[in-house]
């Protein structure tokens, strides 16, 4: 691996996830988070070279909706800017590439979206092919349930196993002030909740939520000025699976496995078990098990590394932001900002983001308190 620029996460701000913020529009929710992230870095907007957003026009309910975010991102005088119709974690990956290319030294990455304004199950149905899949009414909960069934059949996982994973996430979420579901619940209780789409129960999946998120990246030389404890990106990789659901083995995530291997190799690590914390984009317990397996970890039970100490997406899943929040959470853990849900002495972390039906696209960051390249 040739030498790359050391790039760090140096700031992160997130609005607590709520079902609906009736007082603010999407950009009005975002503005205070942009201000907070800059304030955390002790800088004004002039310190940011490049900015990018992850959002979806179908969630905004208007074409080119992302341009509205410019007004609250400090984009004046005009800045280098781009947008991804993806979870904002993928925008962070893109920003990292721009920094590697030498086009900028600092980047602001935002995620936003008023999920409560539209109907996400309808919107994400349209992501499927319009001939055979979308007309069936398949939505993300249905494709997730198909994947969960496939995984359970292959692995022998039971409903009780799913309930225990959900309960562990719920217990963790109770300690995270930004989580949406903050009441712990026992596996017994969660197992009594009704099916949403069998084998997924209401207690295993997140409610609809919205937030606004801003994360700041900076290259070595700038990062130390912006943050007392920069969290360095040591490895990074992104892989996508085929669009045709029937062409995939839904019981596994080949792309998460490969992305993890490549990101670990870039970081100079052999195994995901060498990190202290993993934040997974797992929106139900079966996804968590599939991802843990893909990363070479035991699919269930308490592990070192600690998985989703924030409560994970099961306790808060704001579309287009859930992945960037994983990166922000990893930053919080390694920079001593995780408060009540801190993992003691965490030095390395993995932040994972996914996009698309049944974990179609996977992005893995390996992060650490030390610089990767000398």
């Amino acid at each position, binding site marked *: 691996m040739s030498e790359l620029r050391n790039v760090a996460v140096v700031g992160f701000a997130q609005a607590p996830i709520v079902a609906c913020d009736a007082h*603010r*529009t999407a950009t009005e929710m975002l503005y205070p988070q942009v201000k907070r992230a800059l304030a955390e870095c002790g800088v*004004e907007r002039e310190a940011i070279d490049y900015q990018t957003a992850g959002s979806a026009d179908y969630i905004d309910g208007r074409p080119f909706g992302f341009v509205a975010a410019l*007004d609250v991102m400090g984009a*004046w005088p005009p800045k280098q800017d781009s947008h991804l119709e993806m979870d904002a974690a993928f925008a962070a990956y893109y920003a990292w590439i721009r920094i590697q290319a030498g086009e900028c030294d600092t980047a602001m990455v935002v995620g936003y979206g008023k999920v409560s*304004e*539209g*109907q996400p199950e309808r919107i994400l149905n349209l992501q499927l092919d319009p001939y055979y899949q979308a007309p069936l009414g398949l939505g993300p909960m249905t494709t997730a349930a198909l994947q969960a069934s496939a995984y359970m059949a292959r692995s022998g996982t039971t409903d009780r196993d799913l309930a225990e994973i959900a309960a562990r996430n719920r217990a963790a979420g109770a300690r995270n002030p930004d989580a949406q579901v903050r009441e712990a619940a026992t596996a017994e209780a969660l197992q009594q909740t009704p099916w949403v789409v069998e084998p997924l129960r209401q207690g295993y999946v997140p409610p609809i939520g919205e937030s606004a998120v801003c994360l700041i990246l900076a290259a070595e030389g700038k990062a130390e000025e912006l943050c007392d404890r920069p969290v360095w990106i040591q490895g990074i990789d992104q892989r996508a699976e085929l669009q045709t659901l029937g062409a995939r083995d839904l019981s596994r995530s080949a792309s998460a496995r490969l992305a993890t291997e490549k990101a670990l190799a870039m970081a100079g690590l052999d195994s995901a078990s060498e990190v202290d914390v993993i934040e997974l984009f797992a929106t139900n317990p079966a996804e968590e098990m599939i991802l843990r397996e893909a990363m070479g970890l035991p699919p269930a039970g308490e592990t070192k590394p600690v998985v989703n100490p924030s409560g994970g997406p099961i306790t808060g899943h704001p579309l287009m932001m859930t992945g960037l929040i994983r990166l922000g959470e990893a930053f919080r853990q390694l920079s001593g900002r995780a408060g009540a849900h801190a993992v003691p002495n965490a030095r390395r972390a993995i932040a994972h983001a996914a996009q698309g039906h049944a974990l179609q696209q996977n992005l893995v960051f390996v992060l650490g308190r030390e610089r990767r390249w000398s």
Partner: protein
Amino acid sequence: MTEPPKEPVKYVDANLYLPYRYTAGDCRARFLHALKDKRILGSRCSKTGKVFVPPLVSSPESFAPCDELVEVSDRGVITTFCIVNIPVIGRDLQLPYVAASVALDGAALSIFSAIQECKPEEVRMGMRVEAVWKPDGERQGSFEDILYFRPTGEPDAPLESFVHRL
């Protein structure tokens, strides 16, 4: 493969139905509610003092919060305009009509509206105009409570007075 069928399926129709309910937000809600009383609110930038109409929670220009709501006049000046000969979606306006940018007295930015009650060729930059409101009892707290703007007959404003608000 044999011959294709004589009546192939050429298209698959899809009628996409995606309802939205846009959140007004407290700031916009106050603006819209005031229109019921024929009042136009703006927000003042805490850094530059500029007044934005409709109100914004933050200034795109200075990046500072704009927390203070202030009332502005329903009269102003045409800063730029065009004569439209193509029909507008959702509005029943006689063609051609004038679409104009109107800087209200007290506001740093312009709003957009139609100009009526005069011939299109009479419209000019600097022309003084006033809002024509829906009648009492019909206003809903919507931007459409302002039907259009019309000339007031006051002397034109000199270019220097609105050149910074183009």
